[in-house]
């Protein structure tokens, strides 16, 4: 039998509270008797009668809290002591008064007090405030998904340095997409869970790859977004590297995909070096830096377009032979009939292609593909082989426009959220009677507009009719980035587009190749 006694001087506790705790302690198996009471003469007399009056309790005063525990052995005694500590350290009411209105916490700090097990902060406040909130989150030990854009580059570097120091994941700024352990964050899709892990600096590209993987029957373990500037030399690829290293150690991930956007060559080289040193198969998509991956790098596999990334990842997980990337020759063959029917009615002055994207990565992919088709083409934003537009609002000749770029979204809602922006743009575009084909992405999933097909199918139908009346034919090539599990009902969306006369392809890559072929007939 063991006795534990403690006197907490000048610690007043309400007697009801003490009796409640006493009742709880008495239910612990092995506890023979316990008493928690203020050291008043009456209480001490009662303790005496119960055989619980120890020396220190005897000396206690009426303002001192006396705790006496009698147990069969040390085990129950220490359980009881733990319960007591827990009880007095309890937080009290932190939840909002439950009435008609709930008070929400006003800051991360108080949110954390209500939900101490929180492990991730999702931050989407306006740009000027984003760094402050993200810093607070990191300092509180939370990983961060930072959706906000317009965050200064220097702030991004500091955030990522802080995250690195703390071992936390800093996804973003300007991180539109992530899937953590099957939970879709930001703009993302209902994707099958599986053994392919992805690190991506490009949100929409990562969405498409996830959807393709899912469609092909495999799944995604983690899809970690890093934000579009992670691989700039000012940011050093910090999140990219941390994500990659984590996936290398993750038991649920067998194959890793690395997808970047504009990447500083030194940083890319460093990443490729780390990737080489690993034991897992890694698919690398660094557009413009393909030369970094040589053919003799056993576990590294270069991907040349978005569909190729997904197909390669799937093959590696299955142990199948690696797929060749689809090319214009393959599409030319596979979709011969479609190409013919889309190109046998246009009028001689219809020469050009207009690609109007909501996802930046699709614009990047089209940029590379157009370079293989056309001597000259324009793009906004302007890079690679593209020539620069005088104004992003006025397309010229063969043209790619990323309508999700800051230039357009600064004043308006993102086109993934509101199809009307593209409807307006298309309406303006067809004033140029030289257009032969439009190439459009339609991104489904969480965060995106719930029925893009409604507005877009109509403008497609109307535009085709107008051009037909002018004696020509307008072709629309579309791809749907999404899965059957997405809230938009992919099948219905596909039907709406097909009913409008658009051609719906199975991937972004196919769409760009097909559109390029149609434009260059």
């Amino acid at each position, binding site marked *: 039998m063991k006795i534990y006694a403690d006197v907490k001087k*000048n*610690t*007043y506790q*309400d007697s009801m*509270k003490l009796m409640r705790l006493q009742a709880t302690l008495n239910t612990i198996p092995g506890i023979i008797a316990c008493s928690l009471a203020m050291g008043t003469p009456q209480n001490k007399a009662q303790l005496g009668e119960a055989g619980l009056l120890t020396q220190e309790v005897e000396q206690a005063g009426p*303002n001192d809290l006396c705790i006496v525990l009698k147990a069969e052995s040390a085990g129950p005694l220490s359980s009881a002591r733990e319960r007591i500590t827990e009880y*007095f350290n*309890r*937080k*009290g*009411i*932190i939840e*909002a*008064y439950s*009435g008609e209105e709930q*008070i929400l*916490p*006003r*800051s991360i*700090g*108080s949110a954390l*007090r209500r939900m101490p097990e929180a492990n991730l902060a999702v931050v989407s406040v306006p740009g000027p405030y984003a760094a402050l909130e993200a810093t607070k989150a990191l*300092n509180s030990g939370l990983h961060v998904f930072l959706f906000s854009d317009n965050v200064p580059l220097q702030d991004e570097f500091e955030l990522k340095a802080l995250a690195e120091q703390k071992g936390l994941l800093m996804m973003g700024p300007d991180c539109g997409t992530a899937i953590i352990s099957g939970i879709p964050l930001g703009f993302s899709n209902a994707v099958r869970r599986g053994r392919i892990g992805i690190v991506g600096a490009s949100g929409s590209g990562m969405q498409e790859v996830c959807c393709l993987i899912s469609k092909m029957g495999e799944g995604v373990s983690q899809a970690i977004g890093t934000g579009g500037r992670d691989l700039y030399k000012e940011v050093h690829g910090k999140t990219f590297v941390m994500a990659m290293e984590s996936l290398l150690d993750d038991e649920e991930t067998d194959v890793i995909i690395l997808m970047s956007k504009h990447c500083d060559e030194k940083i890319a080289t460093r990443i490729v070096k780390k990737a080489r040193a690993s034991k897992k198969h890694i698919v690398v998509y660094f557009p413009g830096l393909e030369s970094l991956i040589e053919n003799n790098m056993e576990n590294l596999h270069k991907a040349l377009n978005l569909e190729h990334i997904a197909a390669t990842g799937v093959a590696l997980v299955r142990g199948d032979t690696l797929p060749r990337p689809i090319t214009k020759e393959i599409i030319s063959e596979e979709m011969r009939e479609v190409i013919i029917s889309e190109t046998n009615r246009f009028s001689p002055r219809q020469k050009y292609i207009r690609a109007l994207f909501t996802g930046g990565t699709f614009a990047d992919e089209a940029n590379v593909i157009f370079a293989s088709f056309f001597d000259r083409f324009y793009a906004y934003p302007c890079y690679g082989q593209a020539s620069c537009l005088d104004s992003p609002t006025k397309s010229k000749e063969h043209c790619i426009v990323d309508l999700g770029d800051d230039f357009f979204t600064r004043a308006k809602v993102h086109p993934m959220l509101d199809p009307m922006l593209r409807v307006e743009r298309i309406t303006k575009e067809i004033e140029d009677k030289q257009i032969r084909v439009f190439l459009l992405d339609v991104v489904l999933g969480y965060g995106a507009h719930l029925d893009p097909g409604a507005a877009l199918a109509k403008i497609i139908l109307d535009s085709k009719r107008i051009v037909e009346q002018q004696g020509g034919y307008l072709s629309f090539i579309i791809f749907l980035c999404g899965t059957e599990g997405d809230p938009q009902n992919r099948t219905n969306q596909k039907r709406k587009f097909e009913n409008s006369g658009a051609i719906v392809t199975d991937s972004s890559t196919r769409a760009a190749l097909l559109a390029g072929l149609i434009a260059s007939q």
Partner: protein
Amino acid sequence: MDTEKANQEALKKILDAHPVWKDVKIAGEVIPGMKKNRIFHTGPPIEWERMCIPMKASITGAMAFEGFCSNMQEAEELIKKGEVELDINQNHSSIGPMAGTISASMAVCEVENTTFGNKAYSGPINTGRKPQIYCGMFTKEAVDIQKWIADIWAPATSKALQIIGGIDARVLVGKSILMGDEQHNRNQAATALFLTEIIRGYVQADLPKDTFLEILNFMNDNIAMFWATPHLAVCKSMLDPAHGIENSTVVSKMSNNGVQFGIMVSGLKGNWFTAPSPPVEGLYFPGFKKEDALVDLGGSRIKETAGFGGMCMASSPAMLLQVPGKPKDAIETTLKMYEITVGENPAYQIPYLDFRGIPTGIDVRRVVETNITPLICTAINHKKENVGYIGVGIVNAPLECFEKALMAM
């Protein structure tokens, strides 16, 4: 030391405080820097010319108490000539309610924070609805009450306190919060608990029966507010050790001289950060209305600085009637106060919030971030002299003070 650590240290100092009301003394004998011709008033510092009328009137009252003069013009002359010196309480370990004027012959409560050994002094003693020298009054009645307090009440209470070994204010206030005081506008439970303890002292002090009765009646008549004065020193003694911690953004003083609301921050020793005094939203005694009111005034904002009063309104069901809106709105104001404080003080628990400790350690950064400013419960003073306080209400500390303080960090 970085700010987080500094703030945790400041919080710990406040939580570890153990205030004990040791004695009642005469101001000139104990308050550092007090002299026969000095009057201490509520800060932040302000020149005579800019003071509000009630402040000037309270200073006049203190001077009348000392026998220097009998009206405001005479008071002004003496001050201009330099024969009477003015300073703020906060520079001298002392603290007073409203205009807070303390002079050398007045009775003050002496409270010691036994954990750290520091002392604080508060006065004048609260007189309830009877004429209040500290509320802009210099009438004969206002002066006479303080004289009685200094001559009769003080020595008796001093003796009684010494006999019983002082009053453990931490335990007493802890109990009173559980009983429905918020410890600024409502001190009923605390006063009652004080009386139950001090009576043994008075009895053993062998006072003449009349004196004993007079003293008891004085406090019983003022059961609502008597404890308010000792509590000022209690709060100050709790906060003083937390002042002067480098890099700490915890507010260590809040005070209002009737013209300017000012705060001091632990890590910015010596600097007051001020803003114009805001109007008080409240309820008026019969015969008085909003147009009669002075803007906010009071040294008692030290109580909210320590987590009492408007910071813990949820502990006081009766106080909820002072807040416009439904009772649940008043409770929500307390939940909001937790957003701007570093921690909680488990020695003072709010039953309605499942015995959560009062929000403690106002953090300047959090105030500025959330736009939530400390809520203060206070009396409303008449804007002219010789009327006293005319109502009670609530007011928020001005955001500007906290923004200025933040920028100075």
